[in-house]
């Protein structure tokens, strides 16, 4: 696989904005599907060893996706996304907020803006995430780091068990 694809990541603390740009070696319709169809999103959105599952998705303006990020220990962190604007294969916007297992959102959340453009079979995706609070950004990270640490502990236990034999 070619690995000279652009990846740009910046955090502007003053405007509480995260900007991410990435190129993908696929046409725009395929990349669009990967970002907008729950069964595909679930395959990549959770950084390993976390996993993702979508309980339901209704991809239309005003529609929602209710999903969880699951840690290796099985802890579920639910979140709810509401689509606020959709221009097929070009742009979609949504509001994202953590939630409990009963779909009650915990505000404030964040605003996400995705833009897709294709050139010579390479699709560039630009994501702008506006967080109402920096603490919230920090919490997202904490969740992920905990998940990663958990899996390391699991691995340690496994190795200890194996070497004990």
């Amino acid at each position: 696989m070619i690995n000279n694809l652009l990846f740009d990541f910046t955090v502007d603390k003053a405007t509480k904005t995260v900007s991410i740009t990435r190129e993908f070696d696929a046409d725009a319709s395929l990349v669009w599907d990967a970002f907008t169809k729950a069964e595909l999103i679930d395959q990549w959105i959770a950084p390993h060893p976390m996993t993702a599952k979508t309980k339901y998705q209704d991809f239309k303006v005003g529609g929602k996706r209710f999903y969880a990020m699951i840690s290796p220990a099985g802890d579920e962190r639910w979140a709810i996304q509401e689509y606020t604007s959709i221009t097929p294969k070009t742009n979609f916007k949504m509001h994202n907020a953590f939630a409990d297992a009963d779909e009650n959102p915990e505000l404030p959340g964040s605003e996400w803006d995705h833009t897709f453009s294709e050139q010579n079979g390479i699709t560039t995706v630009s994501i702008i995430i506006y967080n109402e609070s920096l603490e919230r950004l920090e919490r997202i990270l904490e969740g992920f780091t905990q998940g990663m640490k958990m899996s390391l502990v699991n691995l340690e236990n496994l190795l200890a068990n194996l070497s004990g034999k």
Partner: protein
Amino acid sequence: MRRDIFQAIADPTRRAIITLIALQAMTPNAIADNFNTTRQSVSKHLKILTECKLVKQKQEGREIYYSLEIEKMKEIDKWIEQFRKIWETRFNQLDTVLATLKKQKK
């Protein structure tokens, strides 16, 4: 009370104070001269910055000088780097998903 660097940088005045004292140690009065605000308000911001361990104080005679803890500022960069890594992992996973989809289409 739990304080962290993200609380410290979440406020525009505190960010401006950080920028000021990054250049040289300053007294609260000298800092206040740079803002359209009361000495009291600057003291409040300095208290928060101190609680976040982003600034240190040094007594010189009757004056207290505030300066920046550069090492602590680096924590922010480290934090951003972790966040960037999450997205890197995500997108590498997405590359694999896309490659699989392309094969299926053929």
